[in-house]
Structure formats: structure tokens, C-alpha cells
């Protein structure tokens, strides 16, 4: 264990006799062996590899960055001239919707579909045969998606500020960023659960079946009051709806959020509780799926 713990010592300084704890064969290092990096180096390398392998696939960036930004540009910009009663532009209300849509698709695809694919290819099994801790893999995915999510949000904000006449105080932009990012990450277990429970070949289809209807029924594309009544009735039972409500509340007063969505937002803690509950339930499901996968392989 000591070898992984020491972050500082790198280079050729290999101790003459490495402790062979509970082993009956002494470690036999090659003359050129060197200490590997520590945990931080591991996490950074994992993140770098995740980022590179995602960024080199154009479909990925198009799906999670370009599409939400493009949709916002198409629908948000023309709606900048419409205003809510208090003068809040409709484009200002649409921006968080498309942001939430982008981050939802990110967690579903970067976590769900990716993990299912890596599971299916046997890549996870090979990783399991190494001494690498499980958190390295998940940590790498999480950090990577925070980076990509930030890119999505910044691109969206740029379109909002420069093309769709979204005007907010700097502190409000920042709050919008934080709420969308944290809310999106609270949905990450949704992706993890999909990644470990879905059959690898079905994951992409299931991912689309989950995130498109969820985005639609949560009012990310069109305000809820333009949707059929039955969708408006079920919306409050969708975690993503509460994600949206939290984001809209950053840009406008509860009255204006109601004016836009057609549903009065609850107190912030209700929406936060919904997201936390979703996080816990799906994290449990994901852990269950992860364990099931391991015991299935070991069985």
C-alpha cells in the first residue's frame, strides 16, 4: 500500500527490498523499475484519457455541446423580443432549459452509454484485474463531465449574452452556472445506473428514450403551459422538472417562473430535496448494478 500512498517520491529511488507483506515470494523489480505517480497523478491521467477519447469523437461533442447550443440559438434568439410581464425576456427563460437539456444528455451519454460500451468491450474487466482503485474510473468520468458541462454552459451563455439579449448581473450568471452544473451532476447516478444495468447494445437506445422525453416533459424545450395537460400533470414527478425549476428561479421571480412554465414553483428546498432523493435512489441502483456486474463476472 505504501507505494501508492507516497506521492512525492518518483524516479529511480526504488528501495532495495520491497516489503513482501503476507507474501512468500519476494518482489522482483526490474533494474529500470521506477515508482509510479500517486493518486493525484492517477486521477489526472485518467481524466486526461477520458477527455481525449471523448473530444476526439466528434459525435460526442456535437451531441452534448453543439446541439443544445444550436437549439437555443434557433429557438431562443427569435424569442428574445418577447417578454414576460416584468420585462424578463423569453430567451432568458429558454437558456436554462437548453442548458439543463445539454447536461442531461451529457450525464446520460458520457456516463450511461459510455460505461455500458466499456463494460461490453471488456475494458472494465481488464481494469479490474489491475490494482487501480474503482474511484479512479468514476472520478475520471465525473471530472471529465464537469469539464465538458462547463464548456456547454459557457458556449450557451455566450450565445445568450451576445445573440439572445440575455441580461443578468454577473453574480446571477455565476449562480446560473453553479445551479445548472450541480443540478446536472445530481443526475449523474441516472447515467451510472443506466451504464451498469442496461445491456451494452441497448444502452444508446435506452439513453435516447430516457433523455428526450424527460427533456420534453420537463419543459426544457417548450414551456410546460404549451404542453398537453397530462404532461403538465406528470411533470412535478420528474426529477428533471425540479432541476428546471431551480434553474428558472435563478433568472426570474417565482411569479414570472409560473407565468412562463404555467406551474408555480415550490420552495427551493422542495426541488433540492427531489434532486437529492433522485441522487440517492439512482446511486443505490448504480451501486447495485455495479455489484451485480462484478458478481456476475465472478460467478
Amino acid at each position, binding site marked *: 500500500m505504501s507505494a501508492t500512498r507516497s506521492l512525492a517520491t518518483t524516479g529511480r529511488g526504488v528501495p532495495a527490498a520491497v516489503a*513482501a507483506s503476507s*507474501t512468500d515470494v519476494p518482489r*522482483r*523489480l526490474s533494474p529500470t523499475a*521506477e515508482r*509510479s505517480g500517486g493518486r493525484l497523478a492517477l486521477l489526472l491521467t485518467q481524466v486526461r484519457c477520458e477527455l481525449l477519447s471523448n473530444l476526439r469523437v466528434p459525435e460526442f461533442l456535437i451531441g452534448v455541446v453543439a446541439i443544445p447550443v444550436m437549439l437555443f440559438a434557433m429557438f431562443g434568439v427569435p424569442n428574445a423580443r418577447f417578454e414576460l410581464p416584468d420585462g424578463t425576456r423569453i430567451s432568458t427563460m429558454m437558456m436554462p432549459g437548453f442548458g439543463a437539456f445539454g447536461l442531461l444528455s451529457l450525464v446520460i451519454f458520457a456516463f450511461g452509454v459510455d460505461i455500458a460500451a466499456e463494460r461490453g468491450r*471488456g475494458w472494465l474487466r481488464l481494469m479490474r484485474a489491475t490494482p487501480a482503485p474503482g474511484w479512479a474510473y468514476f472520478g475520471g468520468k465525473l471530472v471529465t463531465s464537469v469539464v465538458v458541462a462547463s464548456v456547454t454552459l459557457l458556449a450557451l451563455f455566450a450565445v445568450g449574452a451576445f445573440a439572445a439579449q440575455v441580461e443578468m448581473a454577473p453574480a446571477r450568471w455565476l449562480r446560473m452556472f453553479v445551479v445548472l452544473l450541480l443540478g446536472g451532476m445530481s443526475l449523474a447516478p441516472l447515467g451510472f445506473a443506466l451504464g451498469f444495468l442496461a445491456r451494452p447494445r441497448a444502452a444508446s437506445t435506452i439513453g435516447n428514450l430516457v433523455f428526450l422525453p424527460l427533456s420534453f416533459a420537463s419543459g426544457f424545450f417548450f414551456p410546460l403551459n404549451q404542453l398537453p395537460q397530462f404532461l403538465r400533470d406528470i411533470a412535478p414527478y420528474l426529477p428533471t422538472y425540479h432541476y428546471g425549476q431551480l434553474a428558472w428561479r435563478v433568472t426570474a421571480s417565482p411569479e414570472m417562473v409560473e407565468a412562463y412554465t404555467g406551474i408555480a414553483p415550490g420552495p427551493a428546498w422542495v426541488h433540492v430535496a427531489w434532486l437529492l432523493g433522485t441522487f440517492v435512489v439512482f446511486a443505490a441502483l448504480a451501486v447495485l448494478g455495479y455489484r451485480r456486474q462484478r458478481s456476475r463476472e465472478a460467478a
Partner: protein
Amino acid sequence: MMIEMRGVTKHYGDVRALDGIDLDVAPGEVVAVLGPNGAGKTTAISVMLGLTRPTSGTVRCFGGDPARFEARSRVGVMLQESGVPAALRVCEVVGLFQRYYPYTLPLDELLARADLTAKRDAPVSTLSGGQRQRLYFALAIAGDPDLVFLDEPTVALDVSARRAFWEQVEGFAELGKTVLFSTHYLDEADAVARRVVVVDHGRVIAEGTPREIKRLVADTTVRFHADVDLERMRALPGVQRADLEDGFVVIATNEPEALLQRMFADGVAVRDLRVTDSDLEAAFVHLTNRGVHGAAIGAQASGARRVQA
């Protein structure tokens, strides 16, 4: 001992993938686990790695649980299917695996040991089959392991790729490392290993040096049309089996010259004579005492032998 397996069984429902395996691997050994597809080789390696729990029996790696960190950090492995993220470059994937282990070898050395120096910056998706297997080998040795498992590493490789691959493995074994690999090619076991463990039906059916194992098997199959006494054929030196199949006399032997000389001396009128290398199934037929169970497997194995011959 690097590995100690005692009475290991693994059952999948009614299927006995492993049916009581005992195996010891000492430091510095290069061991081949030889057997036809479905013999239990992959399951055995999976159990040795601690990825699969045995139904009964014990497995110890470096004197303890193979799944514990101390064991994992001293073991390297090539599994049969492990799709590397295709968009990454060779150096990036190897660099990642270097971080997984407490100790590692310099990147340049790893690439050189896997003969991938020229492919350092190549995306994984552009590698040939042989290069891809060598990349997996680089990943297997990234932690400077004391013990390396290679599960059928040369399946689907052509002759030259196979030869190149084994050269790299032998180079690593020369550091005093222990290597255990599975194969269904007798010639590979013969050329690379110092000890061969023959597995079939989840059991160890023979064990010894490659020379000892080769003496046990009939490496040639002779087929012809003729009127001969099968009992007399079976009595000839080196003959393991003599049967009538579809009107052909089929003789498995490791001394085909003696057989043919005898027949010609006896003046037997031989037609449609064919002499071929045995596939693994035929080679071990008297050891395993079971029939042919899959023509495809046999074709693969005999292809391999022809390649070496």
C-alpha cells in the same frame, strides 16, 4: 509459490468448467496451459486472477488472496477481449496503465519491450491485430509484474505476428519474471514454455516438459484407402489410434515414417494417401478419450501447426 491451486472447481449450472484443478507455479517459470477451446483455460486464469470465485477449492497468489492489492500490483494480464478506447494513442493508454500500478517501467522501455516504439503516437484504432496484441502486452507489463498471465494471446495472429509476439514475451521472461499463458497450439507451448500443463474438461490431464508432452501425443495423422488389418496397425510403434472413418483408414501416430515403411514393405496397395499434422484434438485423443467436438476448433489448431512446420 507464485500460484497454488488446490482442488479448484467451477460450476456453471450443470457445466463443470473446472473439475478439480491442482496447479503450482514457481517463481521464474514459463508455463503453458494447453487445451482445446472450452477446456477451462480461460476460467482457470480468471480464477487465478481473483476475477472469478471458484465453486470449491483454494487459490493462492503470492501466498494469499489473488484479488488483494498486494497481489494485483505484482500481476500483469492480457485478457482475451479488452477493447481499448479506440481514440487514444498508444502512448496514452500505456501511460494510463503505468499509473495504475505502484511501480512501473519507463514508457520508452515498455514500448520497446512490446516492439511498439514506432507506433508510439498512433491511435489505437489504426493498429493491426498483431500490434494490438502487443499493446495489450505492454499494458500487461506496465506494472513491472512478477507474474504475467496471457490468455490465448496469439489467437487470430498470423505466423510472423505470432513469432514477433513471443519474442517480446521471452525478452520479458529473461528478467526472471514468471509467465503463464494459455494456448491451443502445441507448437507454441513447445517453443515458448518450459513446462506444459494439458487441460481438458476442466482437469489437468497431463503435465511435463514440452519434450515429455510431445512424446505423449500423436502429432501426425495418416489417411488412406487400403485393405489393412487395424489391429496390426495399432501394434506398430508410435501409433496411438487406428480407425476406419468414412471408408478411410485413419491412423494417428508420432512415427509416420515407420508406419509407411512398414506398409510399403508389406506391399499394401495404398490409395489416396494423405499425411497431415494432427490438430490438438487428434493429438491428445488417447489422453482425453473423447471424440471430436467441433471441426472449427480442429481446423484452427491444425492451421497453427502447419504454420510452424
